[in-house]
């Protein structure tokens, strides 16, 4: 057996991986950065690939061992090599996608299940406390823990709600949805996606949302972290993937939300922004609307907030910003966002937005 580390794929190395993956009907994913390939051949050559596992960021996926060598412990070699390689890249908290029937193999290799979508996919992590610690950190935000600071208007007959937003950047549309949800809820948790794949940095997006809703006493703004719409729970949200992969990731993300996150915060209702354009988001919304009620979580869809007869969207704000149309921006965003965009501190985003307008990004955020 020859173990090969591929840190940059060529057509030939990718073909080797795909030969093994195809046997298990696993598809190659385009965000793969590197792979381990095991060949069944004498040393000094690379022939007859029999096992492979790949990584993207801190996610291990596309793992397959050829049927004729299954059971020879190649999964151990794959994971050992991947863990070591990713450690050298500074990535120690690792996530792993596999088929549910292979859960046990990876459980014995130090991976703990986070969530499973029946017959489709299981997400695991190598940190035995990863999800636990995350849920504990959420509990610190729990409204009601601090008692006295709760807004006097809170009404316990209303649901405890959640909404997930990207806010790239924070617009009047976001503010309106959050305001409406807050008024219909006893408490509202706003999860801001922390994946740094947006034009505006996570820290800026988060800060603007916090500034923009600080007048709402029953609202808490939380960083979504690794377990809500992240590259770990929902990689296909951030790149073009086949529909079946997207669907399974959407279900996975939804499963983590209903089984782990909602119980940790006592959430009984989730708000979703209506999505007229983006198919990925629309599919995600459909999955939420299907699965959450089964877990006793209500799903409320809010139409987009319109300005001058047009739905306010963050992509319009970005376009106006890059064109320097600050009065146009002003009409669509709250003061905090306007001040930030106008201060020069946001200029780093100009180049990223420009690239995006020219079609560089695989997927435009539906819910902004």
């Amino acid at each position, binding site marked *: 057996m020859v173990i090969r580390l591929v840190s940059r794929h060529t057509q030939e190395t990718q073909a080797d991986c795909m030969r093994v993956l195809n046997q298990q009907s696993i598809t190659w994913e385009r965000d793969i950065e590197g792979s381990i390939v095991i060949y069944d051949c004498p040393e000094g050559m690379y022939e007859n690939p029999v096992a492979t596992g790949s990584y993207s960021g801190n996610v291990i996926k596309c793992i397959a061992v050829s049927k004729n060598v299954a059971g020879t*412990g190649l999964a*151990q*070699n794959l*994971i*050992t090599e991947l*863990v*070591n390689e990713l*450690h050298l890249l500074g990535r*120690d908290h690792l996530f792993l996608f596999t088929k549910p029937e292979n859960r046990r193999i990876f459980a*014995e*290799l*130090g991976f703990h299940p986070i969530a499973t979508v029946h017959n489709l996919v299981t997400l695991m992590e*190598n*940190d*035995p*406390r990863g999800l636990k610690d995350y849920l504990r950190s959420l509990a610190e935000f729990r409204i009601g823990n601090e008692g006295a600071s709760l807004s006097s208007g809170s009404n316990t007959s209303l649901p405890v709600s959640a909404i997930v937003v990207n806010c790239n950047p924070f617009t009047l549309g976001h503010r309106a949805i959050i305001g409406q949800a807050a008024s219909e809820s006893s408490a509202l948790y706003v999860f801001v996606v922390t994946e740094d794949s947006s034009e505006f940095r996570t820290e800026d997006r988060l800060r603007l949302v916090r500034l923009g809703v600080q007048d709402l006493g029953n609202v808490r703004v939380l960083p979504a972290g690794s377990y809500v719409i992240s590259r770990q729970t929902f990689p296909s949200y951030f790149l073009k993937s086949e529909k079946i992969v997207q669907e399974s990731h959407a279900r996975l993300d939804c499963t983590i939300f209903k089984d782990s996150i909602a119980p940790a915060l006592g959430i009984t209702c989730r708000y979703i922004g209506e999505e007229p354009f983006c198919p990925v988001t629309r599919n995600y919304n459909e999955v939420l609307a299907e699965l959450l009620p089964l877990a006793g979580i209500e799903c409320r869809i809010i139409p987009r907030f319109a300005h001058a007869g047009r739905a306010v969207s963050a992509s319009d704000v970005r376009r106006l910003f890059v064109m320097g149309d600050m009065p146009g921006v002003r009409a669509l965003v709250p003061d905090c966002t306007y001040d930030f965009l106008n201060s020069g501190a946001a200029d780093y985003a100009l180049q990223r937005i420009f690239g995006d307008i020219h079609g560089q990004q695989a997927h435009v955020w539906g819910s902004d």
Partner: protein
Amino acid sequence: MEGMKILDTGIAGTLESSDVMITIKKHSGVEIELNSIVEKQFGRQIREVVRQVLEQLGVKDALVVVQDKGALECVLRARLITAVYRSAGLAEVQWEVFA
């Protein structure tokens, strides 16, 4: 010997049969997360060895994740010490300390 400090996350060992993979990271106090195929029979013993080695190295703060694949005690010791040294960023082992 002066106590060793866990700085970066340190990893040592493999997931192959008869081996153990140790991940050690910053923490306050010593905690051990053990996942072993022989946990029922040897869980206590494994934790005991881990505590003893950490004490020997003067490590007071660490989270140790032990993914055991049926390693002998000598293997566990070797892997744990390797992980601690890697985490502390020290290349030269003080052999005098070890029996």
